[in-house]
């Protein structure tokens, strides 16, 4: 079995060779006064179509057309190549006209969302594993609701056993909202631990005002808060892993349509 490092090396080397060949071909075409822009445009459009095929392949699971992981590798490296092809085709100069501008913006949005997606798919899984218990995304809302119910049961039990409402008051004022839905979304998205730590510190500060019996209940509640923070983390991070495709894929379709329109216009008005 080929190691990831070796595979990365071979694929990167192939990518560099392909880019070099494309640059040389474009240079040759320009030098020989051939329609280099049309050639590079067709190449770029073909590359974009190939990249879009990956999504179709994922749906047609019964087709014996290479594994999805092979397609993914092709997608990643052809994606990098498409950036080079775009630069060869459009150059780095300012675009002309609204359509070209829209096309350039769409291309860069698709490319950047792809690069961001690649980063997330490589970096997030390990972070998710190390952060806490792995949970299935779709089950998180029900787990959250169950945790809230259990926390309220702890409060009710504390009132019954300690004959004091101190814990219930703290819960009502500071914690109840926390269990209502996902919290610290931005912190979790950015990977910052500041907000969750601050919240836990606030809860721990309340221990000094509680009796020994109440502290035992509060400890259970603190555990629930920690579990909920992991659920929020998992929800935000797994949500990001799912959400970026909802940006990347529609933008790709928009890009294909705009590029097709651009191609038609270029073909119609080509000298």
């Amino acid at each position, binding site marked *: 079995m080929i*190691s990831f490092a070796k595979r990365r090396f071979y694929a990167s080397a192939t990518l560099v060779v392909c880019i070099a060949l494309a640059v040389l071909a474009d240079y040759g075409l320009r030098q020989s006064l051939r329609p280099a822009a049309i050639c590079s445009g067709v190449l770029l459009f073909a590359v974009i179509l190939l990249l879009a095929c990956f999504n179709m392949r994922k749906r047609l699971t*019964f087709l014996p057309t290479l*594994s999805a992981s092979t397609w*993914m590798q092709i997608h990643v490296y052809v994606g990098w190549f498409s950036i080079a092809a775009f630069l060869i085709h459009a150059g780095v100069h300012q675009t002309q006209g609204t359509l070209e501008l829209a096309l350039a913006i769409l291309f860069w949005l698709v490319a950047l969302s792809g690069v961001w997606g690649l980063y997330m798919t490589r970096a997030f*899984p390990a972070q998710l*594993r190390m952060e806490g218990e792995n949970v299935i995304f779709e089950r998180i809302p029900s787990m959250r609701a169950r945790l809230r119910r259990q926390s309220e049961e702890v409060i009710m039990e504390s009132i019954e056993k300690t004959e004091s409402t101190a814990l219930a008051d703290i819960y009502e004022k500071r914690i109840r909202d926390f269990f209502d839905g996902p919290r610290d979304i931005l912190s979790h998205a950015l990977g910052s631990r500041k907000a969750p730590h601050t919240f836990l510190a606030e809860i721990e500060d309340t221990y000094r005002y509680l009796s020994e019996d109440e502290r035992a209940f509060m400890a259970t509640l603190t555990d629930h808060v920690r579990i909920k923070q992991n659920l929020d983390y998992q929800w935000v991070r797994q949500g990001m892993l799912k959400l970026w495709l909802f940006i990347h894929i529609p933008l790709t379709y928009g890009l294909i349509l705009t590029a097709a329109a651009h191609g038609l216009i270029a073909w119609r008005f080509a000298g």
Partner: protein
Amino acid sequence: MPLTVQPDTSGTQFIRVNRAMEGDEPFWKLAATGLPRETTEVDVDRLLEERTFEMILKEIDDRISEKKARLEKNKGRDLNEDELGKLEDTRNEEVDSLRKILLDHARIRDFAYDEIVVRVGDYGSSAFLLLTGSVRVLQVVDPKKLGRQTSRRPSLWGAFKRWLTRPRIPERRSRVRVNEADLFASAETQVEEPRYRDELEESKTIVRVSRPSASRWGDDDALSKSTVFRQSGEWIGEMAALSRHPRTATVVADHQEGEETTLMEIRWQGLYALRNRWSNFKRQIDYKYRERGLAAHLQTTSLFRHVESEELDSGRFKNAITFQSYGDFDWNFSYEEIREMNPQERLQSEPLIAGAGHYPNGVYIIRAGFARLSHSYNKGERTISYLGKDKVFGLEEAFESLATKHPVPFRHSLRAIGYVDVLFVPLWIIDKYVFQNESVRAELESEMEEFEVENDIHADGLEGLKTDFLEFLVENRYINGTEAMLIDMDRCTRCDDCVRACASTHDNNPRFLRHGPIEDRFMVANACMHCIDPVCLIGCPTGAIHRVTADGRVVINDLTCVGCATCANNCPYDNIRMVYPRDASGSIYYGEDNTLPIQKATKCDLCGDQVTGPACVNACPHDAMIRADMMDVPSLVDWLKR
């Protein structure tokens, strides 16, 4: 999915199914076909006249006589009437326990001419004793005649059509049982629903409908390579039942016209009870194994591959090798309990086959099951490797002992994980047939691993697996898997493409859960592992769950599954799910005999009907998943260390 039991609607179909009884019911109540025939005291009286049981009765009498002689010797006089009465009571208790075993675990079955008694490849949970008539043992039978799927190349068009027409309703079935009409219909009439075709073909035999036909088994090779047993008292399928090996031959009833073949079928629980209680019976069964299977089995091992079969078949050779069993045959039932134990307790629960420091007078060959190879580390035991079928333990020490003429102790301990059958081969056989054969010795020495393990728990084990991961695989008995689903959680983006792919190739019903225990960064997901020792197959009343002979997959025939959940309860890994089939309108099917909905067992079938192979692995874009054979450690290590 929550079950909503719907009221009777026009779309609801009523299907009568025979539900399996609880395991503690007498065996006769679990009728293989038709109405159950009770095992009565009269039947037991008849069985006790068989030579097998006469030998047990003789052993009981011998024990009593010995006890009587001992007592008389101790007392220095003859026993009085009271004392003799007590001895008689003891004898009666023993006989009663024998009778109870037979009443609870045996049943009498009549077979029509040519009816299948056992089929090659089946995982037997019972053995048969011939009472009257005769049986034919067929070594060669066309798999199609047995109703088994042959290795058929799935068609792309078929896979596409199935994908295109996948129903929106979960667990939709247009039929949930085999009708009589289906069984006798010609192939053409079944084509209306191609996806049931294979299962119907299988069902014809699985439901064991007796249709005598003189030419059924053949005018071909089959008859020429068959053996006929006519003598009553002949055992059939006993080793498969004891060791959970697949049946090695097909046996059909083969009597003269006007006669009937009658056999006693005893389930493995009874067989074990007899074997453990009475040494005469154990000797008898072990003798049968030596007679029928030992030579053939040894010839498949690396140690004796080169030895002529006549030599292996010789009495001197066969009698020297002993057959030993360790551990709990029902390990799947104690699995959860053992998982909860701490490592020390768990180790104590594993019977020691050979201990480090013991001086060997032979080597052990694993015949079935798994064993843990470990050595002591501080106050615990560090697992170094696990051994499966045909692996040899103690060969290096045996070679050293023979070379130096001084006994060399075992360096490691060998413990039974779950249930293990071993063959103990004495040192003189190793010396004569292996050590003195230079080419074989050289070959084996080059194959032998260097048992020098770094005394560091963080170091890799012998096979290159990290110790903690190795312990995890062994302790959870995932080593049983030939297609275990491992997910690298550092690469898995939780996109569920694998689950969606599985669902889309199974009529929109996923057949696994992307969930399971995680060790290091690897998850063993809840997907059928197509185990080496498939305990799920034990006790299936209709044989609906079976191993495909062609490729080793464990599959369920949906049409013959009666939804008894025996397989789901047996599976220690919780990889079989019971579902409620629905018709096209979404209504749940109900049994005609009661108001309970019909259930079906479902699990991963490894996408046997897909051109692509397992859709889950094929659909993972991040190289996060593998279906791993746990016995192929080098490939596993390659994947883990990519």
